[in-house]
């Protein structure tokens, strides 16, 4: 692995099998603080399964998941989230009946530990409202704070999910195809937003849009059949013959 002294996220020799099917095959990779590490690969390469093993939704059969040097294999999903993992799903997951700002507020409550307050009206909590609104404003959703999440457009849902990630004050963002299903304008805006996050958070980005990946990433890893076949800077990956044949295809890059 690279010579980073203390990676934010480190995966060592991760193996995950479903019966005879090996979806993650001895995989090691790391994300340094502030680094945007992109993971690309064809459909079925095991990208989403890998994310799920980082978040704790899946338990690896072998290997280690380390966050800031601490082994977190045995921690539950909520425990890992509280240690600084924030995830955006391929299909945004939101609290559909709550408004945009209320969605953000739940993430803020998780961070502040105020979710157990039984008696005080959440709508009267000024600190909560300010923190939630500022999370929305960071993704440009400050003006739709009172709309119900289920009625937002696909792009707005994506952004709201990111806002919820920020509200939780994470160290590492796990973004699963944040550009999928977005129109051209939304997509361009999302790329700019992601660019603005670089350096502030460690980001593990799974994305099919190769052009966006090469323009954003500090490092790119290519996953095929549960194994990394290459890992390096965007330029190294573009030049890699293995990658060209396995994934990028003849006209790639």
């Amino acid at each position: 692995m690279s010579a980073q002294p203390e990676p934010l996220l480190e995966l060592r020799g991760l193996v995950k099998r479903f019966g005879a099917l090996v979806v993650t095959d001895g995989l090691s990779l790391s994300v340094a603080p502030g680094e945007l590490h992109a993971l690309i690969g064809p459909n079925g390469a095991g990208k989403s399964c890998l994310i799920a093993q980082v978040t704790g939704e899946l338990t690896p059969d072998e290997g280690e998941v380390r966050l800031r040097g601490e082994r977190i294999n045995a921690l539950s999903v909520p425990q890992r989230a509280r240690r600084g993992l924030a995830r955006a799903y391929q299909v945004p997951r939101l609290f559909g009946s709550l408004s945009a700002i209320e969605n953000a507020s739940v993430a803020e409550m998780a961070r502040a530990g105020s979710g157990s307050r039984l008696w005080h009206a959440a709508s009267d909590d000024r600190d909560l409202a300010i923190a939630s609104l500022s999370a929305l404003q960071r993704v440009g959703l400050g003006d739709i704070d009172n709309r119900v999440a289920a009625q937002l457009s696909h792009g707005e849902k994506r952004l709201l999910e990111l806002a919820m990630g920020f509200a939780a004050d994470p160290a590492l963002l796990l973004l699963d195809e944040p550009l999928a299903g977005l129109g051209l304008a939304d997509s361009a805006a999302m790329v700019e937003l992601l660019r603005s996050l670089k350096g502030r958070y460690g980001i593990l980005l799974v994305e099919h849009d190769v052009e966006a990946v090469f323009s954003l990433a500090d490092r790119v890893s290519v996953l095929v059949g549960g194994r990394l076949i290459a890992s390096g800077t965007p330029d190294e990956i573009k030049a890699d013959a293995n990658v060209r044949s396995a994934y990028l295809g003849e006209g790639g890059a």
Partner: protein
Amino acid sequence: MPQRAGMPTQTRIILGVLLLAALIVPLLGQPYYTKLVSRMAIYAIAALSLDLLVGYAGLVSFGHAAFFGIGVYCAGLLPMVGIDQAWIIVPAAIACAALYGLFSGAVSLRASGLYFIFITLAFAEMMFYVAQGLRMFGGDDGFRLPRPTQLMAGLSLGNPVVLAYTMLVTLVIAIYVARRITGSHFGRVVIAARDNETKLRAIGLSPYPYRLTLYVIASALCAVAGVGFANLVEYASPASMSWVVSGEMLFMVILGSAATVIGPVLGAVVFVGLETVLSSLTEHWLFWLGLILVLRVLLLRHGLYGLLSGRGQR
């Protein structure tokens, strides 16, 4: 699904009229109607407590009558050892129901969906058979209340007028408590868990402790209604915790509209009213009641509450 905004004026007026009617009726000196008011208020409290689970948390409990029955038996059994004061009986009922809620909730909340429905039913049936097995207390038949519950200053819940006003006051308090809880930080987390459990975990909160807390609160609240019910019918029997009663409570919640606090109150009032009217007209009243529920589901998107607040016909 939830109606979180403040109540429309229209709804406030109708509720005000209902409450006013309920306050006037006991003054008319007609015990039959006075008891009808008590009955409506008692079921309203029970339905409201169930709505906390069904509506806000999305937890369809089919065993809520167990907690109603715990209240009934506390009001029935404690006088046998000389305790008939409300200030002991009500906290005792709340404590017993909360304990059983903590225990049964801790187990049933490990399951979800259909399994949750059946585990809650099983826990209620367990209580039912325990009550049935109490041979010295009439077993299956139950027993007459030895003495009605006594409020302070010589007021007895055995007096229909006192009971009616006590239950109305209790209902108003219950509505207030339910609105506070559902509007709190805690309430918002409970709704979030209903909407998307996976997401709630992913942002760092485990739904389980929130749901269990709510389950205990709903259990305790329902037991208070049970104490009132024992005084209304002056009787304690296993029938008060049968699955039929659990089903009726669900009926009221759905009739009125879940996740609204007020909806289930209306549902209970209309249910008890219909039951009274229909059963005096025909012995097949259950058929008509069933038909009405089918029509509500088909025609009224937001239940009776939606009808009153002028929103959402289907």
